[in-house]
């Protein structure tokens, strides 16, 4: 707190003001202006036209419905996978563990378009599993499961990455205490693990959902662009734009943007909770947890 006066002095110096102006201008130009223009364009013909563009076009309605089903399914898969994987990585040491952790990050580094093409190469008609899927009469690519797969792939790291550090910080002690008191697996998970990681988990879920709703590249490749069947909201935005229906396109875009803003609010709220929780955790840990030497010898 002692540095406050100096901070104020720096901020009001010419260079400081210039930097602040630069930052504000950049944020305004790159984030605020485009976002605002989406809403301006969306409502350019009034709120009634906006509503009609969303509710009266069956293809748009379907796209909204599709996004609202594909994203949650992808998020659920990622939540289950994320908790299981984070738990595995945080609680166990095994050969190949660090390789596994790096693999979780692959979806971040691979371009979504490449991910989509890879799915086509595996699940497509000419792909590795193509003949098997055709024999089973299961459609994956250019159908709902393909959209879920692509979305799950791109959002894969978000939950697990969020949980690993939190689970490692919390440590296994409380879980083991629960076991020692006779708790079974489910009880440990629901009463100890989950309450401990809930904010981190929620944070991961919110991020994964935001990414899932907005995903374009991978989904674009596997969708097949069938209006009213495999177009998600972002694909619908592009399609309407290309069909010269800019206000309708921006109406869908405004829904996506509104979802993004909601996500942002949820994210800020959850981050606050996470912060208080980690402070509490730290406060609780100071006396006992770091005094390993006294008990360390008992482990082996």
């Amino acid at each position, binding site marked *: 707190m002692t540095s406050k006066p100096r901070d104020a002095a720096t901020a009001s110096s010419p260079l400081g003001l210039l930097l602040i102006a630069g930052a504000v201008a950049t944020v305004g130009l790159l984030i605020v202006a485009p976002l605002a223009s989406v809403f301006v364009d969306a409502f350019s013909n009034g709120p009634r036209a906006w509503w009609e563009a969303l509710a009266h076009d069956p293809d748009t309605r379907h796209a909204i419905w599709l996004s609202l089903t594909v994203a949650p*399914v992808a998020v*659920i*898969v990622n939540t*289950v*996978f994320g*908790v*299981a994987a984070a*738990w*595995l990585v945080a*609680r*166990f*040491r095994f050969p190949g563990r660090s390789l596994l952790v790096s693999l979780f990050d692959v979806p971040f580094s691979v371009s979504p378009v490449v991910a989509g093409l890879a799915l086509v190469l595996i*699940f*497509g*008609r*000419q*792909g590795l599993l*193509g003949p098997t899927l*055709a024999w089973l009469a*299961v*459609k994956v*690519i*250019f*159908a*709902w*499961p393909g959209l*879920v797969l692509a979305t799950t792939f791109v959002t894969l790291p978000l939950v697990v990455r969020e949980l690993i550090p939190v689970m490692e910080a919390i*440590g*296994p*002690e409380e*879980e*083991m*205490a629960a*076991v*020692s008191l*006779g*708790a*079974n*697996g*489910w009880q*440990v*998970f629901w009463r100890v693990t989950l309450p401990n990681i809930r904010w981190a988990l929620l944070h991961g879920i919110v991020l994964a959902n935001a990414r899932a709703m907005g995903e374009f590249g991978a989904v674009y490749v596997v969708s*097949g*662009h*069938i*209006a009213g*069947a495999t177009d998600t909201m972002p694909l619908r935005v592009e*399609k309407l*734009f*290309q*069909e*010269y229906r800019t206000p309708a396109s921006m109406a869908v875009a405004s829904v996506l943007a509104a979802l993004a803003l909601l996500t942002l609010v949820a994210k800020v709220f959850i981050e606050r909770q996470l912060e208080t929780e980690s402070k509490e955790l730290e406060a609780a840990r100071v006396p*006992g*947890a770091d005094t*390993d030497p006294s*008990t*360390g010898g*008992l*482990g*082996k």
Partner: protein
Amino acid sequence: MDRPLGHSPTPTPPLFATAASRRSASRPRPTRRLATVVVATLLLSGFVGCSAARKEGGGEGKPASIELLNVSYDPTRELYRSINQAFADDYQKKHGAAVSIKQSHAASGSQSRAVIDGLEADVVTLATWPDVEAIAKAGLVKPDWQARFDNKSVPYHSVVVFVVRKGNPKGISDWPDLDRDGIEIITPNPKTSGNGKYSFLAAWGSVLAAGGSPDDARGFVERLYRRTPVLDTGARAATATFSQKGIGDVHLTFENEAHLEVEESKGELEIVYPTRSIRVDPPVAVVDTTVDRKATRHAAEAYLGFLYSPEGQSIVAKHHYRPWTADAKGPPEGFPAIEMFDVEFVAGSWDDAMKNLFGEGGEFDRIYQPAGASN
């Protein structure tokens, strides 16, 4: 020695304070059971996903209504919206069955590839012969597809024309005007786009038709692509580049797309007809493997047949595609006269065009690389 401790109901407290126990190789049993539960849940959620997916797929097979998927290229969106409505009414009237048609639109070459990769089209209505032929070569369409409908399965034509900015500020009236310094040309990538292929062929053929040599044509086309600032993948993206982003002086595009683009621009753009240009022959085909599996052949064939009907042809003309019946005797009603040459005139055949012009290491590769690699 901590394995037995895992079994004992009340292990000694100190164990649970150790950070080291986290790293030890063996686990207390209940934790392992938890792992099993988690894995089971994961698998279960997978099954739920699958069954949900099956439900989604199963909904299409309702016997009461037939659903067709028409996989088409970019500029036909508006055309097929009208056609689909009219056809559904017509089919209902004649056969008493409800048909709904779903549409997929993207660059013609990509669409062809998607069908080969498993996009379950009942019919394809693509921009160029090679796009349908590739599907036939993959075994999804029978090799005689061209003979199944009139006019070599081409229900309507178009022609490549110019779109320029209001008042034609650069004074572009014919092909040689595109050769002037500083004229920027917008056209999509001929590798992926049918519009791109036709524009390339139109530019090449315009030189040959005017009496130029193949070398003259090569030089002309090369200079054009040097002054092409963006190569979009599909026709619609190129249209957006020209009309909405305001890039370029002239947009080479299909007559039908040009009309739509000009109407949309509200007076900001206009069409210029060059003296001569290429005749565009977008072919249609029934995808045999799909219609046989889905038992939709009757509706699919009726659908493509409808394009040739008087009603279909009048809708076609309304959307600025040239009806095929009229093409032998002068321009159809309402369409300006323009001297037309075909792909065979420019390149011998589509196969030759694909190999020599657009294939790996073909003319287009030779022309476009220098612009990108600057050597």
